[in-house]
């Protein structure tokens, strides 16, 4: 390490979790952690007088690595062609745009002030793949959520009524795959698509004869009983279609008693009964959510760019392929899940896209920074490095007005955004980017600058507006190392951590039946299934029992 002690001197500190709201104070760093005090002689002093000092940002939901991201890369050479990045300062070269290469992903996140990014959808069978990509996504701390909502073994056990085995299996799966949280995507829907059926429901019988709600309930119990730091991360049914808000209401109602995270909520706030009557129903969803502090969400904001959609919601991607035409990739992963990919361009002159754009902002502005976090569901709504654009819209009603003038003229009658005056302050924005998602993730050492926190610190030079200020860091300190200095990456030579949970459920806890199912139906042997420790070169294990 270049220097294991740092004093960040004279900055204007924003630390929402500790209630610090723009006080001038020094931050002390030792051995990668924030400490109470430090002697000045031993430490490197970085004078940040006049600059904004905040916890490094945390992205709760961004598809940056793994099989479907790589499949998307394969599908889109023309997308990479437009955004090449040269090798310089010892950084690796690569390509950007909608599915950036791993190094470029890391570099761009770092310059935006991020220290932690979570990939939200990894099939356990291919977890190694995600972890390998994350190893090539340097500096950032990363975690993966494990897809379980369509797992055949889980359904099999539930059908048998063996809830205990089901729970143990889920906990084992999370551990075996090196996951941080349980991810559920259109429960029952992905499996049904393997049978050629489009299935979207919580309460209808899946092809297993089990209602998806039962599966999510069990997974909620797992999250609860095993004290998982992050609750079930749920992408519910009916994504993206007219009337999807009913699915959101249904979902909220079904799981209102649990901790829960609703992924890219924006896509579940649409009204209307056809594309022609497509409209925002964000207010209804916000109303339903306002009573349940235990449920968080992220935006899934839409940006008007050519991007690549990808999700484990395979029936939805197939539907989108039929709607949009053009390329379609799909990958069914044995017994577990699947994924679909469709390139898509959000257009300002498209009424539906215009409404989608507004909806994301509506829910964020109405529910506030502690409840809804900034994401674009990268790259589904647009690449993550468009976040400064989103910040602009969240922090400036004028900027929103300007956009509303540009979008489809009929959109205004279908949205609420023009009625919302709220503008997030710098403090609120920092909350939304760091403190709140870290809290929702249960990452106690992230998202704040109190003693004991990881020394992941973003330092910004104040510029004309909040959005401009937050658009690029002047310094980024990661684990106490100066990664960005004077707005340029100076050190990206280490791989960052994998943050995962250990549920304590080992192979021995699995019933013989599960082992038999495994041996019979998987195409890899049981002993070659579990992700080996070698894939966690630097890791933080959250032991939860």
């Amino acid at each position, binding site marked *: 390490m270049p220097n294991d002690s740092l004093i960040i001197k004279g900055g204007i500190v924003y630390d929402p979790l500790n209630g610090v709201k723009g006080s001038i104070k020094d931050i002390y760093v030792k051995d990668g952690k924030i400490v109470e005090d430090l002697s000045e002689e031993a430490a490197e002093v970085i004078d940040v007088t006049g600059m904004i000092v905040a916890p490094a940002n945390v992205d709760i939901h961004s598809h940056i690595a793994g099989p479907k991201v790589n499949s998307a890369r394969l599908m889109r050479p*023309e997308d990479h062609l437009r955004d090449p990045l040269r090798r310089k300062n010892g950084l690796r070269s690569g390509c950007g745009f909608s599915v950036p290469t791993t190094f470029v992903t890391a570099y761009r996140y770092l310059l935006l002030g991020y220290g932690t990014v979570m990939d939200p959808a990894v099939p356990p069978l291919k977890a190694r793949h995600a972890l390998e990509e994350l190893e090539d996504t340097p500096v950032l701390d990363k975690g993966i959520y494990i897809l379980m909502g369509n797992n055949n073994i889980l359904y099999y056990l539930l059908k048998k009524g063996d809830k205990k085995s089901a729970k143990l299996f889920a906990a084992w799966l999370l551990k075996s795959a090196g996951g941080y949280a349980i991810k559920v995507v259109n429960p029952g829907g992905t499996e049904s698509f393997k049978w050629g059926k489009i299935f979207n429901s919580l309460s209808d019988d899946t092809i297993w004869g089990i209602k998806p709600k039962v599966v999510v309930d069990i997974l909620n119990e797992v999250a609860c009983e095993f004290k998982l730091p992050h609750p079930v991360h749920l992408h519910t049914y009916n994504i993206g279609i007219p009337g999807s808000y009913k699915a959101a209401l249904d979902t909220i109602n079904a799981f209102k008693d649990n901790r829960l995270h609703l992924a890219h909520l924006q896509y579940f706030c649409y009204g209307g009964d056809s594309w022609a009557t497509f409209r925002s129903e964000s207010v209804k969803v916000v109303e339903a959510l306002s009573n349940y502090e235990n449920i968080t969400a992220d935006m899934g904001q839409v940006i008007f760019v050519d991007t690549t959609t990808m999700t484990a919601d395979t029936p939805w991607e197939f539907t989108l392929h039929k709607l949009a035409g053009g390329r379609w990739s799909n990958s069914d992963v044995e017994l577990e899940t699947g994924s679909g990919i469709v390139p898509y361009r959000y257009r300002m002159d498209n009424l539906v896209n215009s409404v989608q754009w507004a909806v994301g902002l509506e829910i964020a502005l109405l529910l506030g920074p502690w409840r809804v976090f900034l994401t674009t569901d990268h790259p589904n709504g647009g690449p993550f490095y468009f976040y400064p654009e989103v910040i602009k819209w969240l922090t400036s009603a004028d900027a929103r007005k300007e956009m509303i003038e540009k979008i489809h003229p009929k959109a205004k009658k279908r949205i609420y955004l023009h009625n919302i005056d709220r503008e997030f302050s710098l403090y609120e924005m920092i909350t939304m980017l760091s403190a709140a998602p870290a809290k929702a993730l249960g990452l106690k050492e992230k998202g704040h600058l109190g003693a004991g926190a990881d020394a992941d610190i973003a330092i910004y030079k104040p510029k004309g507006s909040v959005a401009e200020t937050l658009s690029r860091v002047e310094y980024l300190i990661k684990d106490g190392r100066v990664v960005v200095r004077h707005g340029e990456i100076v050190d990206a030579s280490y791989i960052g951590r994998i943050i995962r949970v250990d549920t304590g459920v080992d192979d021995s806890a699995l019933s013989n039946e599960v082992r038999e199912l495994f041996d019979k139906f998987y195409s890899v042997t049981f002993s070659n299934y579990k992700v080996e420790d070698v894939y966690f070169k630097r890791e933080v294990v959250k032991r939860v029992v």
Partner: protein
Amino acid sequence: MIVLQLKERVFLPLEAEVISVDKFAEAGSVDRISKLSVFYGRDKMELGEFFKIEGSIEDGRILIEGDLSKVKRIGKDMSWGVLEIHGDVGMHLAEGLRGGKVIVKGNVSDWLAMGMSGGLIYVDGNVGNLACASYWGEKRGITGGVVLINGSVGDDLGRRMRRGTIVVMKDAGDFAGAGVIAGTLFIMGKVGKAPGAEMKRGTIVLLEEPSSILPSFRYSGEFRPYFVDFYISYLERNFPIKFPDKLRGSYFRRYMGDFLQLGKGEILVCLD
């Protein structure tokens, strides 16, 4: 006019996208032009290290002489002026051409005019594969301009072209006009396998019956397409090109397809 002469043969690829009227005009003087950067393999070098450069760019004309078969990306994104090449030339010639003329007295390698949107290319020789083709994964190929090739071309001519006119006076390889969205191709020699595969709209005019027509194309009669007379008159009058006499006023056999797509494209085969 500015004249570039290749000093000696190069063996490794020389990336010379700086050779274009736009970039020369921007540089201004011969001195500054010769300092423009090129890549020889991984080495960044100056244009003047490879070429003897004389003249002035004021009239927007460039003449290059020598065996340029390893020199790539000449004329990238050029928008005006005349670029004349005497000698064989390497890959990616006139990529993204927007305007002006590129004239080659020699053969051209693969990937001629990818992403072209306007201007004229005239090649008095043969052209390689993927001429005027869409980049991998790109929905659209060239979106305009006129490309005249006096010799033959390789495979995948005009892939997914959106607009524009391509004339090949001799043979074309396999999958000529694959995925054409619109535009017109004339192939006045033999054509390889599967012309027009996946084409949506657009026209492929052939002098000779192809060896086979895909099952997804349908025979659609014989007729006199008067627009062919118009096209050849236009092209012959404006460019140094002469179509076979047989074409004028002729009847054509029409195949419509590709019915895997819209089925609104056509292959017209000139009848005797």
